[in-house]
């Protein structure tokens, strides 16, 4: 027994001192020369068919002899599987990414695309979310933003003017009191996964932080002790304390329970998305386009101008281990070609990265959103690392349950933000 213990000790110490090899490797591509493998979580869906057909046709024009294989992975497991592929250094040549932390954390495994996508830079929007240290790592397909949707029918019921929602926070709180009297909650909130706070700081950021603070935040110079940053979290707590949110927010899943609350008229507002899910097209199932409104964030700090927070939503990146980066980059470009994106917008109900697409048939809400893209800015939470976002999710739950103070929250977030 003693000998066994000694051997284990020797093994542990040996490994600790050696620590050789690595948990993630970089190596070669699995695919052969005439074939490119693409990983995503979309290609299995029926709505993606015409999009992929258009993209493939566009790619065929450039590389007629190259076969393209799309492998659809389940989204729940996507980054786990991708992590395993990156570790083994073998995997797809081209892969789909969410903008922000998800791609920035993994740029070690990607090829910078700047030289390949120069032509597309004007036509497409949302590059910022796929950029790290000044280098572009993916070509945007959709734009993801965080507009505030409201239910015009509830406004009418509460004797409010559906055509002119509140423009200041105080007026907004007063409106919510009227909405509460009419029997609805102000916000449909799902914060079980801690995602609610992300939408909150991004939706309210432009009217709470000054323009200078906002730009500094995006540039990575975040002053967590500034009064306005604290105000952002204070307001979040206030909506909980004043019972403005739907009940049981910490146990309600955002996808799609909170959106269901909004659709079914139990709450007047929701901070939603503009692509994929929880957006104008989803809501239209129960809320007709005339009943669905999109409002600008109410002004909290005097002198601020509301702007739509949005970034590149999803985009295709090229793996470092691919044999011919130029060819793989061409495929990524084809996947965001004008024709393909038009099909994506029409079938999937996403705001495509190509802002020249005509959206007037989609209803007033989508027209309002696209109209605001020009003055829009990157969303605040997308600039944070996944680790800080994860921590923020847990802290936001504590704020709602009242077990932490705003000062403590910003202190912990500042520490995590500086470490990451």
């Amino acid at each position, binding site marked *: 027994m003693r000998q066994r213990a000694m051997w284990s000790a020797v*093994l542990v110490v040996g490994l600790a001192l050696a*620590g050789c090899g690595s*948990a993630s490797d970089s190596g070669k591509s699995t695919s052969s020369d005439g074939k490119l493998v693409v990983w995503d979580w979309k290609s299995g869906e029926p709505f993606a068919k015409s999009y992929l057909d258009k993209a493939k046709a566009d790619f065929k024009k450039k590389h007629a002899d190259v076969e393209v294989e799309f492998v659809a992975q389940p989204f729940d497991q996507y980054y786990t599987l991708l992590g395993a592929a990156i570790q083994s250094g073998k995997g797809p040549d081209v892969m789909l990414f969410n903008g922000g932390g998800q791609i920035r954390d993994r740029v070690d495994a990607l090829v910078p695309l700047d030289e390949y996508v120069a032509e597309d830079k004007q036509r497409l929007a949302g590059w910022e979310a796929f950029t790290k240290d000044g280098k572009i790592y993916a070509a945007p397909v959709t734009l993801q933003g965080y507009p505030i949707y409201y239910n015009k029918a509830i406004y009418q019921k509460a004797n409010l003017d559906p055509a002119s929602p509140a423009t200041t926070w105080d007026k907004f709180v007063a409106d919510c009191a009227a909405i509460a009297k009419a029997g609805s909650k102000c916000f449909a909130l799902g914060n079980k996964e801690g995602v609610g706070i992300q939408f909150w700081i991004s939706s309210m950021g432009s009217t709470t932080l000054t323009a200078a603070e906002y730009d500094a935040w995006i540039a990575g110079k975040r002053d967590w002790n500034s009064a306005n940053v604290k105000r952002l979290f204070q307001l979040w707590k206030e909506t909980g304390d004043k019972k403005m949110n739907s009940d*049981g927010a*910490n*146990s309600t899943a955002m996808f799609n329970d909170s959106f269901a609350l909004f659709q079914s008229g139990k709450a007047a507002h929701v901070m939603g998305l503009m692509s994929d899910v929880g957006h104008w097209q989803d809501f239209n199932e129960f809320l007709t386009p005339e009943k669905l409104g999109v409002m600008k964030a109410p002004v909290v700090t005097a002198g601020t101008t509301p702007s739509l927070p949005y970034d590149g939503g999803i985009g295709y990146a090229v793996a470092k281990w691919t044999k011919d980066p130029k060819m793989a980059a061409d495929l990524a470009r084809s996947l965001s070609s004008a024709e393909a994106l038009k099909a994506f917008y029409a079938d999937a109900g996403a705001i495509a990265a190509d802002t020249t697409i005509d959206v007037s048939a989609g209803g007033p809400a989508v027209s309002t959103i696209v109209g605001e893209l020009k003055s829009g800015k990157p969303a605040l939470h997308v600039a944070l690392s996944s680790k800080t976002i994860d921590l923020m999710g*847990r802290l936001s739950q504590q704020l709602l*349950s009242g077990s932490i103070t705003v000062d403590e929250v910003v202190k912990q977030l500042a520490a995590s933000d500086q470490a990451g």
Partner: protein
Amino acid sequence: MPMGNTQPSVRPASAGRAGGAAVTPVAHRSGARPRRARGGPGAERYAPYILVAPAVLIIVLLRLYPLILGVNFSFTGDGAQNGTAVGFGNYRELFADPLFRTALSNVGLLVLLLPVAVAIPGLLATFIYLRVPGHRFYRSVYFFPAVLSPVIVGAIFNLLLAFDGPLNAVLGSVGVGPVDWLGDPDIAMFMVVGVHIWATFGMALVVFLAGFATLDAALLDAARVDGASLRQVVWHVVVPSLARTIQFVFVTTMIGMLTSMFGLLFVMTSGGPEGSTYLPEYYIWIQQGQMNRPALASAASTILFVIMLVVGLMQIKLLERAGKED
């Protein structure tokens, strides 16, 4: 220990054919083996090793090598430090992370709740054995949840325990305010464990019923004739007779609790609220899949492995001692 079992059955035969003095298996065990083996022809000398080689190779290649690789990764860095040795850096980071500490303390909570998880199927099996009215019906009903996937069970209880769900509606109708079952950090972990027990106690119940099948009915009759109450029968007759069954259920329930709660956690709470329902497995999954920290996840896996090793060894000791008493 496959080696220990195979050798005595192979050796005596080879020793006999080699024409040497009769060597009893007892002599082998007491250390005469190396001297005898040197005398045999080469093929026969290596035969046992060749025969066990496939099993050993499979264990070494598919079990030990990945295990050592994983432990090795836990001493390397992530991201920019990928592949460089960081010593115990990952372990220091883990123990400084309040979330990982919560996950470990939840493991402790599971151990504390273990008696409850064993007592429930034990009591219900006793009632079935004592033929309470409807025992046939209950026997099948109790087993039913054991065949459901944790994901389905989690989804069902998500609906039942929702803030505006049926359980709160029932409470409301008797005048008790709604409780946020899965949104209150003080309650959520108990709800998840409760659902896990509900979903898995059927299996333990079956083991208990099998144990009861070996119970001497004459003892029960004798106790009844002597005028023992139900409580006395259970405590003085049933429990001592089932000691080994109870120990077995303890071991299997413990393993089940530590290794198969992931599905329920994933569906019911996602580790929340406020990180209060994290378990090491879930932490490992988050670090590797969501945070892109494979080395840190390896370190957490190593710690979980050590915990399981200690718990497992303790349980083996316990079973051995119980076996000796028989």
